[in-house]
């Protein structure tokens, strides 16, 4: 059994939620190494609770645990709630419309045993459109020669110039969240980026495992990033980009007021 907990946040029911959730849960069930626990962090929305109660958890029923989040149910808030509930040394998270590759937890275990000093492991993410067709990889660039100071690691200098990392599926040592804070709910759009900046600023080694660990459904209608894409103009996007570079020095989630 793995020493990694899988956190799966879900806050509302949309079109195809059940089908997507089935696919996500199956990807956990198909892991070569069984996770210690599958934490489903959900809101108190009635329809969602009914769905989760009647849901066929398959073989994950032996280790799935439903956690109702009565606090902040933003994506970041859900993850933070999951981290609070985690009893293992490491955790990963899976968006409800995505999939872990079958080797992800096994690869994570292998890399944890060889690199215990690393606080955050990212997968190479396989980006697809909603039809499952390949779009691109993300996070792979750090393995290119001379991209970062040390091949395979994301450092703060790299992040100053290159923000396009995807932390979906990342395996995190819980201790680094305890020491340097979780995901910031006051950060919009660039909370991923801010998190990585904060980790590297605090000298937490961030390594990309050169394995396709995560299949990310990009541009799905109703997803958080589609919502951002539809509602934010370029000026606002730039604001959050700059804000991430200002906020990462602080572990606490400070109030941020959007100004043009």
């Amino acid at each position, binding site marked *: 059994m793995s020493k990694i907990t899988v956190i799966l946040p879900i806050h509302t029911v949309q079109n195809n939620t059940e089908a997507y959730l089935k696919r996500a849960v199956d990807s956990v069930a198909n892991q070569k190494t069984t996770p210690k626990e599958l934490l489903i962090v959900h809101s108190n929305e009635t329809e969602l609770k009914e769905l989760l109660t009647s849901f066929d958890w398959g073989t994950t029923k032996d280790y799935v645990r439903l956690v109702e989040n009565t606090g902040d149910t933003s994506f970041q808030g859900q993850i933070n709630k999951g981290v609070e509930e985690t009893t293992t040394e490491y955790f990963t998270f899976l968006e409800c419309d995505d999939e872990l590759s079958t080797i992800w937890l096994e690869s994570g275990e292998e890399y944890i045993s060889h690199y215990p000093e690393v606080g955050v492991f990212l997968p190479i993410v396989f980006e697809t459109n909603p039809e499952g067709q390949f779009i691109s990889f993300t996070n792979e660039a750090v*393995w290119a020669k001379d991209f970062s100071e040390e091949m395979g690691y994301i450092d703060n200098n790299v992040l100053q110039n290159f923000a396009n990392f995807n932390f979906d599926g990342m395996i995190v040592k819980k201790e680094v969240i305890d020491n340097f804070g979780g995901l910031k709910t006051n950060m919009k759009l660039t909370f991923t980026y801010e998190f990585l900046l904060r980790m590297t600023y605090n000298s937490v080694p961030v390594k990309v495992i050169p394995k396709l660990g995560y299949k990310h459904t990009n541009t799905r209608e109703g997803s958080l990033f589609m919502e951002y894409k539809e509602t934010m103009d370029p000026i606002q996007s730039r604001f959050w980009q700059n804000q991430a570079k200002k906020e990462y020095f602080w572990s606490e989630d400070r109030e941020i007021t959007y100004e043009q």
Partner: protein
Amino acid sequence: MSEQVENLKTALSKIKSKDFGIYFYTIDTKGNPVASVANIYEHVKVLNELGYRAYVLHQQNDYKLYEDENGMGIANWLGEEYANLPHASIEAQQLQVGPSDFLIIPEAFGGLIKETQNFPCKRIVLLQAYEYMLEDLGLGESWQQFGVNDVITTSNTQKDYVESVFRGTNTHVLPVGIPDYFTKNEKPKKPIVAISARDKREILKLVKVFYQKYPHYKFITFRDMSGMARETFATELRDSFLGVWVDDLAGFGTFPIECMKTNTPVVGKIPRMVPEWMGYTDENGNTQLNENGVWTSNLNALPDIVATMVGLYLEGGIPQNLTNGMEETATKYTTEELRNNVETTYTNIVNQRQVELETLLTRLEETESTKTETEVTNN
């Protein structure tokens, strides 16, 4: 007793007491790591450990043992202990041989075979690259013609080949031994492809085609493995997830074995002479390839095969039959086997030389005895 008989008796006495030299003629690679030279050094090292007086014999006094402003020497790319082995220079007139001594000449030095035909020592050709064995020989010329009958080679395929070209050759097979520092990596492998190619243009072509056809794999690093110190080479190979080998003229093929020993799957172009570890020819004349690597006869297919291997690596799906095949081959060609083979081969060679000299001595003594009897009768 004639001086000739006296010399032969002295030579036999030296052979029996291991008081003779084995000289390995070696080119000065000027600091460039070369597998065939590394193998010669292994022979010299083992023979000295076994109590023989083996020397690396070089032409000029300025043979490059240590690093200078122009690059590495033997000490740097092979190791200090190799630089400390006995060396002798022809220029310094340190080669003085008698009937008990041995001169080992690499296959490419046909000229040296001719020049040394009147030397009193035993001469043996060390054949590592069959492609060069006719270098410096004229049409119709053979090694036997210049007094060389014995050959040491690295594989049975090369043995069969040389014996088919130079009939009547006495061939000893002494496979290459891979140093013990070619071991599996404890840490996971990196997305790096290690390439070894005799023709460097093949490396550039492969990389260019690969990046052109598979732009999403641009993060994959290709590393030319030439010009590295041996231990650095082993470390780099251990880190790589894949090895690529292109050497049409290979006689043995050390690189793929080194890959297998470091648990690095290898993709290779099948050379003109199929190495015995790669496969064999069945009774119908068909080549049967082993599953210890991905072998192709189509050079143009290499970028696509590399891309497939990248995909398998990223998905953690390197086939089990491939890793099993690699492991099986990797158990062979050890330094211990090399040591045993060096001991057996050179003991046989020395014993054969002893028999040759004893036969010669008997004949000479009989001739002298007959001559004395004739003289007595005549008187």
